[in-house]
């Protein structure tokens, strides 16, 4: 049954003397009401429930993943043969710019946000995030920012300066379409989403953990998400500044990057990569967190060296700030800077290596179950190791001056991002799908999905090592026949293989999408604890109730759920782990002892309205400033509405209670 239909009538107003605990419509300054729908589309677009927001993040990111994937296929089609003509030079430049921008900003980052939103509160035993309306705002900003950015395709051309958007090639003189403006403003909008989310999740982790849960008892996924939020908190302002400078240069005549006015184009590169390198860890760490949950679950033993994994994650977060100039070894920084950044870059390989070692040793001595999620997680170890090792070859600065801007680099970061981040997200899909939707994704299709993606990634990106070492630069719409060479290292041959590989990956992804539909249609309910899992999110129903936990669990140990299920029993052959309780029994226990008063935030109209104002302002900057005035008015209206709306819906806003089968008193109190 739908839960939490109405506010609790019990507490505040009984004693006439006490002031109302919550501001309701009748006691608020204005007459703005809170939306109260619990079903239908309104229950989604006005929701502040972290789980619904998480699902929406996931659905939209997945859509953008497909968009970015199609862009990648166009790129590989163009490069499949020498002097090919599938795409024009201009369209090719737009395609690779949007492929990278989409995959980074509209797929991996928000997909990680989807997982973080959904599971972080569950993993720490909270009922929602600290700032639920801000959370909704973050999602809508991401969605509208992403749509805004992609409308550039239909409004004069997509951005064409590469995702790194180096100055002065990004100035109006050299990129005269509005594409770069769409890019700048779109990323500003999605950037606000990231910042809002970062603050929200940091506060949530630090303040809303279940009783007893120390920081060093948090699941590793939560830890990695926390590190990522700090990275976002400090990285997003840098790119925001850079984007503002560029925006003012292009639209309002500023000269920050105008060489004729004495500007140094390297300013942009520094700003971009001070953001851009932490961004790499923003992309990869959530995935590290996911597989740090998946590997122990299916190895049936705790993560090896939890503290080392956590501290190495934090160390990556710190050292990640000191390596940005390794993207600029050929930029002419001078030998001292190059040497320093070269050594710093090698330094960061150490905590990264620690993680690989710990994951491997987690598997050692385990009882390994090769579910699809586990296969993806092991796939991450393999592919990320390859990417990491080629990364070490780039850290050697003189060697990097040969490699940089060749396909060797393209191979490296696709192993890291597709092999590391994306495969990790897929491990998360298969692992947590039953938790979110109460259904198991088909393992049969899942294994096909995994093997196609795994082989596809190697087929696509391994040849790029060869292409790079043979001197094929990046971002070239065509490569000439006369440079192909012959024999085993024939560039033409390996380009074709890479193109074939990209379609193998695409087939794998397609199987995942098919799996979603097949699973949804099958309507088979998953067991409550299908993986014999270890962490708090599995202590509740699947899908979780709106209020997450009937009783906020008290935490005694890392892997709390596992320790509630298993106890060590002495036998004649020494101590043995024995299952003492099933998940069902634990859940029943929790339900029987449900908290009396459950406070949940009410939905709100204002996050989506506020978010809608920003793209209107952005269109105005590009086309007509009057439109910006309209957008600003929308934003202001939403801000006032936000501030003035009552903290909770009025009792009379709700439908009368429908039935009496609930034994619990539930409330939608803020």
């Amino acid at each position, binding site marked *: 049954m739908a839960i939490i239909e109405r506010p609790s009538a019990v507490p505040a107003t009984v004693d006439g003397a006490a002031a109302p605990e919550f501001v309701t419509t009748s006691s608020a300054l204005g007459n703005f009401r809170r939306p109260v729908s619990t079903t239908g589309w309104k229950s989604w677009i006005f929701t502040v429930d972290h789980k619904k927001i998480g699902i929406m993040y996931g659905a939209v990111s997945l859509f953008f993943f497909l968009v970015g994937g199609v862009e990648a296929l166009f790129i590989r089609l163009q490069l499949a043969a020498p002097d090919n003509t599938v795409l024009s030079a201009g369209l090719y430049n737009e395609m690779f710019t949007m492929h990278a921008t989409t995959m980074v900003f509209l797929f991996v980052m928000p997909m990680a946000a989807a997982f973080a939103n959904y599971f972080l509160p569950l993993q720490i035993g909270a009922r929602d995030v600290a700032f639920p309306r801000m959370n909704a705002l973050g999602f809508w900003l991401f969605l509208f920012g992403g749509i805004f950015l992609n409308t550039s395709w239909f409004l004069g051309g997509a951005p064409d300066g590469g995702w790194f958007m180096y100055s002065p090639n990004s100035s109006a003189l050299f990129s005269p379409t509005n594409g770069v403006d769409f890019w700048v403003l779109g990323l500003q909008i999605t950037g606000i989403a990231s910042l809002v989310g970062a603050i929200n999740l940091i506060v949530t982790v630090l303040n809303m953990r279940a009783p007893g849960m120390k920081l060093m008892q948090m699941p590793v996924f939560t830890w990695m998400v926390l590190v990522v939020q700090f990275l976002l908190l400090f990285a997003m302002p840098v790119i925001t500044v850079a984007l503002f400078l560029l925006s003012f240069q292009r639209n309002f005549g500023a000269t920050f990057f105008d060489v004729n006015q004495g500007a140094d*184009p*390297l300013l942009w590169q520094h700003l971009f990569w001070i953001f851009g390198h932490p961004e790499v860890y923003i992309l990869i760490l959530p995935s590290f967190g996911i597989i740090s949950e998946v590997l122990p679950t299916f190895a049936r033993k705790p993560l090896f060296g939890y503290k080392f994994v956590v501290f190495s994650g934090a160390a990556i977060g710190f050292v990640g700030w000191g390596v940005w100039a390794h993207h600029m070894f050929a930029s002419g920084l001078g030998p001292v800077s190059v040497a320093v950044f070269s050594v710093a870059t090698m330094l960061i390989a150490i905590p990264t290596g620690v993680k690989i070692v710990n994951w491997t040793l987690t598997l050692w*001595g385990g009882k390994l179950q*090769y579910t699809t999620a586990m296969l993806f997680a092991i796939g991450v170890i393999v592919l990320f*190791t390859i990417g990491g090792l080629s990364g*070490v070859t780039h850290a050697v600065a003189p060697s990097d001056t*040969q490699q940089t801007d060749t396909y060797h680099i393209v191979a490296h970061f696709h192993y890291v991002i597709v092999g590391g981040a994306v495969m990790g997200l897929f491990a998360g899909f298969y692992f947590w799908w039953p938790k979110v939707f109460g259904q198991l994704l088909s393992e049969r299709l899942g294994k096909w999905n995994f093997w196609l993606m795994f082989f596809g990634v190697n087929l696509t990106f391994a040849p790029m090592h060869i292409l790079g070492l043979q001197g094929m*630069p990046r971002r070239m719409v065509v490569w000439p026949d006369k440079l192909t*060479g012959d024999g085993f290292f024939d560039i033409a041959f390996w380009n074709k293989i890479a193109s074939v590989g990209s379609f193998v990956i695409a087939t794998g992804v397609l199987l995942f999408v098919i799996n979603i539909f097949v699973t949804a249609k099958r309507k088979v309910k998953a067991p409550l604890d299908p993986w014999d899992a270890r962490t708090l999110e599995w202590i509740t129903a699947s899908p979780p109730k709106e209020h997450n936990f009937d009783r906020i669990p008290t935490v005694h140990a890392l892997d709390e759920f596992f320790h509630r299920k298993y106890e060590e029993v002495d036998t004649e052959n020494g101590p043995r782990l024995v299952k003492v309780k099933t998940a069902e029994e634990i859940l029943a226990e929790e339900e029987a002892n449900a908290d009396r008063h459950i406070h949940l935030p009410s939905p709100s109209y204002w996050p989506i309205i506020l978010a809608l104002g920003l793209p209107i302002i952005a269109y105005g900057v590009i086309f007509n400033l009057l439109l910006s005035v309209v957008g600003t008015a929308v934003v202001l209206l939403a801000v006032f509405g936000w501030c003035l709306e009552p903290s909770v819906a009025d009792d009379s806003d709700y439908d009368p209670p429908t039935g009496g089968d609930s034994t619990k008193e539930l409330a939608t109190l803020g």
Partner: protein
Amino acid sequence: MDRSDATVSTLGDMSPTPRRRKAAALAAGTVLLLAGCAKDAPQDYFQPKGENARTINDLQVPVFLIAGVVGIVVFATLGYIVWKFKDRGQDIPEQSHGNPKLEIALTILPAIILAGISVPTVVTVFELDKKDDTECIINVTGQQWWWEYDYATGDCGGVNIAEPIVTSGELVIPAATNVLLRITSRDVIHSYWIPALNGKRDAVPGRLHTLRMQADQPGLYTGQCTEFCGLSHARMRQAAVALNQSDFQAWVDNQLAPYVAPEAGTLAAEGESTYIANCAKCHQVNGIENADGTPVLSEPDLYVVSGVAPNLSKLMTRTAIAGWTFDLITEECREALWNAEPDEFGAMYLNAVTPECLDEVALRSWLRNPPGMKPMYVDSNNLGSTGGKYRGMPNLNLKEDQIDQLIAYLLERK
């Protein structure tokens, strides 16, 4: 619960079953290292042809090997674990949380390896930045989408350059000489790269970067602009051509040889006036005069964003045009030249565009419609953002007879 003691015993159980069948498959990763064996791959950077590239190669080969070995160890271990600890109905393992000693050891180990790599790295960084042994300085300037080379007057590897030389596409240098390139750009960022001779260096407007160049032997070494520079980034190519001292002297002498006007009444003479009428606004031919004897001086800064266009005085001493992208010689001759032995290369290069080798197809079609061959930002309706200037060569709508005249004229620019 802390069970580090239990872990020790778990690890002590390492059963020494030596079945490493996966290791062989994983050794395939070393395939990467074989990249050095490629044949006829002109931009393979594991085949250094000069001192600087060799310094880099001496550093990168061991690094690749170490990376390969580490990879094989990791994958062999992982493969063994995946096979050995598969769920075969065994008990749930002990809930051990780690083994700090082992972990510290496994943290220090990569640290030592990386420290070992970092020392020669830093040494090499400084070695590649040396400037005190320079024997010749050449200014290299990038612009959309071609490279210009300016030879300052003075000594260049024992050859005296009496007058400045301006050329493009092919960087001609004396072999076995330490040349220092001074690299900059006139518009966006480009990057100069000749893989066989050195790593790359960005050409950044407003900044001057240096790059060492040295070729052991005479020969032609190809390269490509490697910083994304807009629409025709893919068609901004270059080569370094190394010549022995006497050939380099001959090349310099020829570059500085005075202008020879076409014989009156020839097609080339008609070409000269067609050239003055259509091309001379942007392209300079040194020494060319109007009918009244005044010098014809180009003013590309009025028409082109970068402010320059390639100098055509000695166009036929180069083997490719338009950002060194389209060949002036047949494929056969090009193959012969690129693969020539060092001792015969110089003579072939100094006389590369012979009537037998000439392939004027690309030149002709270029004159007919340049942006058709190489996309450039030259739509005359779309010059609002550039103050009316072009970013490449527009279509001049030349008639076929004008093209014939121009080709006849240009063929004499050698």
